[in-house]
């Protein structure tokens, strides 16, 4: 492990900026929220800021993206397909471990399985990832229930832990080590590991006093979701509270459903666009002739929770699909963020029976 002095952080970011487009958490004055964003002004990077409102998934899987362009000439009937170059070096600085875990879920989903998603791969190829240990949880967090925090275990190039004055730095890759060497960071003594462990232990034990909004004892819910032994009334109770707004999918670090649409431009060019989608929308499964196999909203809602917590889906991510960031609970206009749904499933709450 190494020491990064607070003053050296600026140096590190500047160095990375020579090669990478820089993303990180910053405080947005207009919305008064912390957002994970492209930093045009590097001084805006704020590693002490709270968990960002949005996860970093948009960097690899943009909300709205042109994946292909083609030109069709009606006269000659010629078609030219143009591949879009999505390869761009990007550095993600200050990722919290839930979001890093979410990103690793997306990696396994888009790059593993039967086929590799080439568009995701292009974004992923040249990433530099710096994670940031949560030395204290935020009110919405429950990563300790989902085994995804408060500190990163793998997947980073560099991992930072704030010790009160400076940062302890650990390299997770060769790329990371090279940067440490280039900056000439001072090696931390043998006591560094114990110090880091203590900081993490402290963070874990402070969940009881700081992370008060959410808890999710997911293992029982996982069993039930996998075996399907959940009363229809429970799904109805959950479905009745869904406004079908899709917000939960959009703020979730692991939700990855998308739509593809060809948009014609004025010229003879067409953009093939891929956009975020949500299984909560009614049109999601609609087929020709208005035949929709998943019409009732509860049919669609249980899909999301199946995706986050069932064992069969976990096999794709090699872990549960929920990383405990608490964002869905924050944005849901109903009261069916994931932690609440877990509670409803565990206790089979159907409205009438109450708690």
């Amino acid at each position, binding site marked *: 492990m190494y020491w990064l002095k607070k003053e050296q952080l600026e140096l590190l970011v500047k160095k990375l900026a020579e090669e990478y487009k820089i993303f990180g958490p910053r405080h947005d004055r207009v919305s008064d929220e912390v957002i994970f964003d492209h930093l045009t002004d590097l001084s805006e990077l704020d590693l002490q800021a709270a968990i960002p409102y949005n996860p970093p998934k948009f960097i690899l899987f943009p909300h709205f993206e042109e*994946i*292909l362009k*083609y030109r*069709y000439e009606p006269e000659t*009937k*010629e*078609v030219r*397909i143009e*591949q879009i170059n999505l390869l761009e070096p990007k550095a993600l600085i200050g990722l919290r471990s839930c979001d890093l875990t979410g990103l690793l879920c997306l990696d396994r*989903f*888009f790059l593993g*399985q*039967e*086929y*590799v*998603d*080439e*568009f995701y791969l292009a974004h992923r190829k040249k990433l530099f990832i710096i994670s940031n240990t949560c030395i204290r949880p935020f009110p919405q967090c429950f990563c300790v229930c989902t085994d995804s925090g408060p500190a990163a275990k793998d997947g980073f190039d560099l991992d930072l832990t704030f010790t009160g004055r400076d940062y302890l730095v650990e390299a997770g890759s060769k790329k990371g080590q090279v940067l440490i060497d280039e900056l000439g960071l001072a090696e931390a003594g043998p006591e560094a590991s114990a110090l880091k462990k203590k900081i993490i232990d402290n963070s874990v034990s402070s969940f009881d006093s700081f992370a008060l909004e959410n808890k999710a004892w997911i293992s029982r819910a996982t069993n039930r979701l996998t075996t*399907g032994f959940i009363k229809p009334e429970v799904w109805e109770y959950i479905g009745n509270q869904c406004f079908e707004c899709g917000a939960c999918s959009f703020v979730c670090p692991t939700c*990855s*459903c*998308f*739509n*593809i*649409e*060809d948009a*014609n431009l004025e010229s003879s060019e*067409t953009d*093939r666009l891929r956009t975020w*989608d949500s*299984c909560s929308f009614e049109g*999601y*499964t*609609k*087929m*020709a*002739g208005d035949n929709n*196999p*998943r019409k009732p909203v509860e*049919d669609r809602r249980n*899909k999301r929770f*199946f*995706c986050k917590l*069932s064992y*069969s*889906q976990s096999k794709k991510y090699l872990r549960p699909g929920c990383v405990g960031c608490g964002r869905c609970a924050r944005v849901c206009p109903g009261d069916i963020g994931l932690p609440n749904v877990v509670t409803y499933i565990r206790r089979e709450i159907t409205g009438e029976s109450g708690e």
Partner: protein
Amino acid sequence: MDKNLMPIVSIPEIATIVDIRDEIEDVRSFYFTLDRPEIEQAFQIRSGQFIMCTVFRAGEFAVSLPFSPENDRKHISVRKVGKVTAALHQLEPGDKIGIRGPFGNGFPFEEIKGSNIIYVAGGIGLIPLRSSIIHVLQHRQDFGRVILVYGAKSSKELMYKDSIKEWQATENFETHFTIDRPEPGWSGEVGFVNHLAAKLDLPVSDTVAFVCGPPVMFNAVIKELKLKGIKEQDIYSTLERHMKCGIGKCQHCAIGRTLVCVDGPVYTYKQIRTLGEQI
């Protein structure tokens, strides 16, 4: 996998429509060849698979492959139902389309050698079965009895009439047809295809059935076949879902814990029953 046999995953390959045939009202077959010779050469399919077809300036849609993996002309048969399929129906020979695939698991072929085979189709449900029927007839000696039970609303709605005539010329291919209501000049059966299936003397042991058609017909036929004693794991069908990517990423085609585009579209009835969703 041999790299040349890999499906076309992300970027569509351009193909030219070489021929168009009207099948029934609103359903047309589009014969195509892939423009790049090496791709045309390498394009190999299994019966029951599908492709994602781009109609330029309109969009992309999923469509079954009705041609045999061996010695058959490449084509798709498409019903005009919405935006993209209507745009396809506007095209003429010489026009270009885009192709990704082939995708999906396909019907078993090696595993069912030696069995009797019953095909039951309703309406355009014959499209996804056509490839398998031809493939089996091309290897007729490897199978027991081979039977087609086919029904449609009217005689005008029976697909692939020319192909059926050719198949009937094959020895040992039994065919039974039915239409919903009587028509002048119709000598086949009248009534729903499940009623016809119920009446027929069908083999039961060492028998696999392939059933394709609208959900109502599908459920009624399954009931009859099960009554006769055909096992749930020996009944195959293809499922249809809204599809956007074809490669297991967009999740639109999720059904139960499976994705139709990669785990299907071919399922046994036993699997379908445990998916826990409407088909």
